[in-house]
């Protein structure tokens, strides 16, 4: 039986379930305790679990990432919240040079199981330094896993899965999704990482999308269905390590693929996906070029309309899909 929860509520539920189940799990970060989290995600957890397990911290992203790593190395399962993904830049040394590499450098003799949760994305008028989508930076670092849930059910399940995973996981939440409602199963229901999901079936076009763009793609698919274009929407969910096969199978079926992500196009995850598809057995089934729809290569602007235009909207996805299907471009 599933009921409807918001994305934020689903995440909170996952944290609580994990903390109940396993004493080693603890939550820390800026304003996660008394304040309940900048986006209200961790509201109530301090009261429930106490200040030792739900720790408010000073503004010290570098040492916070180090705490996550050091604690994970020595038997704990930390959940660190970095308040905006933009600030992860202050944690880069500890994440990239320590968390990602210590296991390998130490000959596999330690595990570093922590989850770094962070809200990302534009659309709240928070402008350039509070609206980043940096997931592809971490896709590029071996030793780290990257997860981007698009629905409340995925958020809950994948967070539980991430906490169980013995590797460091960057769990990227989208600010605009926090209020989004959806069915969420009850109880302890982890979803293993690295399982791509087909969210909608169709035979004419594959759209591979991440995070918020999955929802926009699904909306676009509804519109396109009325025009006789059947869209298959594929959600990788875990960007790294990627479960490639469902994407390849989908492209083989439809012969056309449109990749949609919010992060800016150049150097974005879409390039990685396009190369994977073009280099796979799906190549011989492509009936049109592989297309990417992504954020413009620019800092997120303050002006609302400009901010809106910077990121793929439903209409943009519909247009691109039409062009690809009807004109092959």
């Amino acid at each position, binding site marked *: 039986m599933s009921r409807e929860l918001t994305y934020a509520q689903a995440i909170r539920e996952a944290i609580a379930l994990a903390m109940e189940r396993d004493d*080693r799990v*603890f939550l820390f970060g800026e304003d996660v305790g008394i304040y309940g989290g900048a986006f209200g995600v961790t509201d109530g957890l301090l009261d429930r679990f106490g200040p*030792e*397990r739900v*720790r408010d*911290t*000073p503004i*010290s992203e*570098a*040492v*916070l*990432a*180090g*705490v*996550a*790593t*050091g*604690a*994970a*190395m*020595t*038997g*704990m399962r*930390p959940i660190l919240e970095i308040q905006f993904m933009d600030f992860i830049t202050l944690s880069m*040394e*500890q994440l990239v*040079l*320590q968390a990602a590499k*210590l*296991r*390998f*450098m*130490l*000959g*596999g*003799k*330690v*595990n*570093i*199981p922590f989850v770094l949760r962070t809200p990302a994305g534009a659309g709240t008028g928070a402008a350039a330094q509070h609206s980043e989508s940096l997931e592809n930076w971490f896709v590029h670092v*071996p*030793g780290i*896993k990257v997860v981007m849930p698009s629905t409340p059910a995925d958020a809950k399940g994948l967070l539980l899965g991430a906490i169980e*995973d*013995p*590797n460091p996981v960057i769990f990227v939440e989208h600010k605009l999704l926090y209020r989004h409602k959806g069915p969420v199963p009850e109880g302890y229901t982890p979803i293993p990482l690295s399982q791509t999901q087909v969210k909608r079936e169709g035979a004419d076009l594959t759209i591979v999308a991440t995070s918020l763009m999955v929802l926009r793609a699904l909306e676009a698919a509804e519109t396109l269905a009325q025009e006789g274009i059947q869209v298959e929407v594929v959600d990788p969910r875990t960007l790294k*390590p990627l479960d490639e096969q469902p994407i390849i199978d989908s492209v083989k079926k439809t012969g056309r693929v449109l990749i949609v992500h919010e992060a800016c196009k150049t150097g974005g995850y879409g390039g990685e996906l396009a190369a994977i598809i073009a280099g796979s057995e799906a190549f011989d089934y492509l009936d049109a070029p592989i297309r990417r729809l992504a954020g413009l290569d620019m800092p997120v602007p303050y002006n609302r309309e400009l901010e809106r235009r910077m990121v793929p909207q439903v209409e943009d996805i519909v247009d691109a899909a039409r062009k690809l299907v009807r004109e092959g471009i």
Partner: protein
Amino acid sequence: MDDRTETTSSPERSQGPSSEEFAGLSPDSLREALRRMLLIRAFEEQAEQLYFQGLIHGTMHLSIGQEGSAVGSIWALRPEDYILSTHRGHGHSIAKGAKPALMMAEFLAKETGYCRGRGGSMHIADVETGNLGANGIVGGGIPLAAGVGVSIQMQKLDRVVMVFFGDGAANEGAFHESLNLASIWDLPVIYLCENNQYAMSMSVRRSMNIQDISQRACAYGIPGVSVDGNDFLAVYRAAKEAVDRARRGEGPTLIEAKTYRWKGHSRSDKQRYRTKEEVQEWQARDPIRRLAERMMAQGWLDQASFQALQEDVAREIQEAVAFAMESPEPDPATILEGVYA
């Protein structure tokens, strides 16, 4: 190293009037400490030789001359206590009980090394002896130590974590963040700064506006103390006090051990930034010789036994080298192992 364990957990009253002078350490314990320092020096000298012979590749950071601070501080720890070390961490590893043979094997990038040949000199670790690794990033271990401290606290373990770092690291932002966090959460961390006067070529006189790094402790409301890093006993005393504090849950301490490295920063260092005179001046304060002399003055050591120690150590190092040389390289088929759990 059971001998030492017994000694440090329940300090034996030594025979003779100078037990205070020797901080409650027994002659056996002191002898073991001396041997440990000799082992470090012999190991480092041998590593240097192998490097010159082209058998060790990459780079190396030798701690010859700093044995007093390494052994003195770690002598205050129990086997289950954690350490995090620096790129100049061979001495800390050996002090904490790492086997020279497995360290040598790691230096020669062999599969039998502590890190299966994947880490090398700068990343030596021996997790079983609580050694969470040397670190190639200046100050890289400092934030990790805070995490270990949190871990100890939350698991209610009777342990402490000692993190080593140099004068250069004390200028990194992470140092300040870590001390601050440890201070507000009363983390059981001993911040052990080995101030060897130079961060590569940058003298402390030019890189900071204060005389003693220990002065920074007051910015975080924690105790800070500077000691002569080449005086084994002075270091031991300060460390012991800090460790006891941490174990009692009273929070972190910053210890500055002033010392000097005899060799250049790394193998490629031309040492343009210091004078030969300065080096010689510090070499005169050799921590090994100083402890040996003090023990001899007490009658707990003589030339012959000192010689015997040196020969014993030399033998151990030779065996270590032999073991390392004979060990196999990693199998290329296992190249991706260890990236993900």
